[in-house]
């Protein structure tokens, strides 16, 4: 019950919805940088939303499956193939034993999440199967996948709607669904994305000119960005007072401004405590777009109220609930 990693690609790791409850020990969230994309992909293949999948950065992954599996992926614009057939984002594929699944380079965005029926079977460490790439634990031996690795897959529930529909076919054949998850969910990447934010804890420490620079100008994603954070180039953001702040919690989505004046948008592998002023926080529903930012992309920031941020999140959860019910009715 395995998949063989024929090619690991640029940076592929096992991730689930992340680790919570251990911040007091300094343990980062980790997890799929777009947890919503992983939830949707998991639902498509009949898994629990929180099953572990693979986070693929910039493509290059090639897997061969030992047994029949249902797979789906969501995220950036990648060319994905099963043999010579294309598997677009948000569609569901029924793979036969021996099938090969191949991720090309990212056209837009930089990450995607692959769900496989049964999930990736790695031990749960501190409540999660996610790989902590900084502290090197969780996932597959606490590291990224390497060429030739064998990934254990979990037992399949057989509850995927698509599996039921294709199960009676004889002879068994590789199939790709014609229906798909909503496009915004399956493929949220964009070359000039907008990110919505709520005011940061230290918003008032910045003067009007700085706030204007932050909210009007486009920022460019710097190449030294990773799962910890996206470094942004653009107009310099300066604080009014230069006093050292007392360190306190930061979170994925926090935009902090170090003395260089170049903001950093924190992502899932960020540290738990930080001492730089926090100008803003990207709202939860836009973290999936933030997860797609790659070097050279231009990004703009727009303010929303905390109420709106919560409203958007609740709306998305209601839509996902409808989607979940829709999938179960197909079974």
């Amino acid at each position: 019950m395995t998949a063989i990693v024929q090619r690991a690609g640029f940076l592929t790791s096992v991730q689930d919805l992340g680790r919570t409850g251990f911040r007091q020990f300094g343990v980062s969230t980790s997890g799929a940088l777009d947890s919503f994309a992983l939830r949707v992909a998991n639902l498509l293949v009949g898994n629990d939303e929180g099953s572990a999948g693979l986070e693929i950065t910039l493509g290059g992954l090639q897997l061969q499956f030992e047994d029949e599996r249902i797979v789906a992926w969501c995220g950036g614009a990648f060319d994905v193939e099963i043999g010579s057939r294309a598997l677009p984002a948000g569609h569901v594929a029924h793979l036969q034993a021996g099938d090969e699944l191949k991720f090309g380079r990212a056209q837009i965005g930089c990450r995607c999440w692959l769900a496989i029926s049964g999930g990736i079977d790695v031990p749960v460490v501190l409540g999660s199967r996610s790989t902590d790439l900084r502290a090197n634990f969780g996932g597959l031996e606490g590291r990224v996948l390497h060429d030739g690795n064998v990934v254990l897959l979990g037992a399949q529930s057989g509850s995927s709607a698509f599996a039921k529909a294709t199960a009676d076919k004889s002879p068994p054949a590789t199939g790709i669904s014609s229906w798909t998850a909503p496009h915004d969910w399956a493929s949220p990447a964009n070359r000039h994305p907008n990110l919505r934010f709520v005011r940061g804890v230290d918003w008032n420490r910045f003067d009007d000119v700085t706030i204007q620079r932050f909210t009007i100008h486009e920022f460019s994603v710097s190449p030294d960005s990773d799962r910890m954070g996206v470094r942004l180039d653009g107009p310099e953001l300066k604080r009014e007072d230069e006093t050292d702040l007392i360190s306190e919690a930061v979170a994925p989505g926090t935009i902090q401004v170090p003395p260089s004046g170049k903001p950093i948008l924190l992502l899932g592998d960020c540290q738990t405590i930080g001492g730089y002023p926090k100008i803003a926080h990207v709202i939860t529903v836009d973290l999936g777009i933030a997860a797609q930012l790659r070097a050279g992309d231009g990004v703009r920031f727009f303010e929303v109220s905390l109420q709106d941020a919560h409203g958007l999140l609740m709306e998305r959860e209601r839509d996902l609930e409808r989607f979940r019910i829709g999938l179960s009715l197909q079974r």
Partner: protein
Amino acid sequence: MQITALGDSALIVRVRDQFEDAPEETLNEVFRAFHLLRDAGIPGIIDLAPAYTSVAIFFDPIIVAKVSGKPGGLFDWLAERVREIVTAGAHRGRRVRSTKTAARPVEIPVCYDPEFALDIDRVAEQAQLSAGEVVDLHSGSEYRVACNGFVSGFPFLAGLPKKLATPRRDTPRKEIPAGSVGIGGAQTGIYPLRSPGGWNLIGRTPLQLFDPTKDPPTLLCPGDRVRFRAITREQFESLKQ
């Protein structure tokens, strides 16, 4: 007490504005708030992170919206609950005069040999002391874990003698070995894992500070009282095994 949103799924409760003027009292207040909030079990709260003057609360807005019945005002509802819990607890604490929060004493053996103490001369120069006096001062003081952060299991220790405060290195090292004891500004701490870092290194402990297979996963927890004990190179090697 000041409660501020840290994005749409977390908030920060600041119990004090300042830290350095009264570290011990401030930490006591922070950990009291931390324990009160942990024990209160507010539905939807998924994580708590104490640090110096504050406790951060991470929550699931969907659950809080349901529990509060106020989807449009869930932040205010939660902030109000938090305020009640922390304030009521503080009053109770004063009545029974038990302001002391449970603080475990932990002793950390440290080898201050020159091989591990790459920056001790820099610290000594800054303090106008000899390297030996730096060791005596560092190992003769009591510290308190203000929080864990930077990487998993990195304890930020308050209580460094003012004399030993040394600015971080201008150029951080690309790789610092696990167990390295350092001074960064007015704090001291221990690198639990091999990692980059800019603190001045003055010694190394043979103990493992972070083990994700253990509960708790860190040797030092927020609030613990810490003392360093100087050990020889031989003791370091034997403790490491």
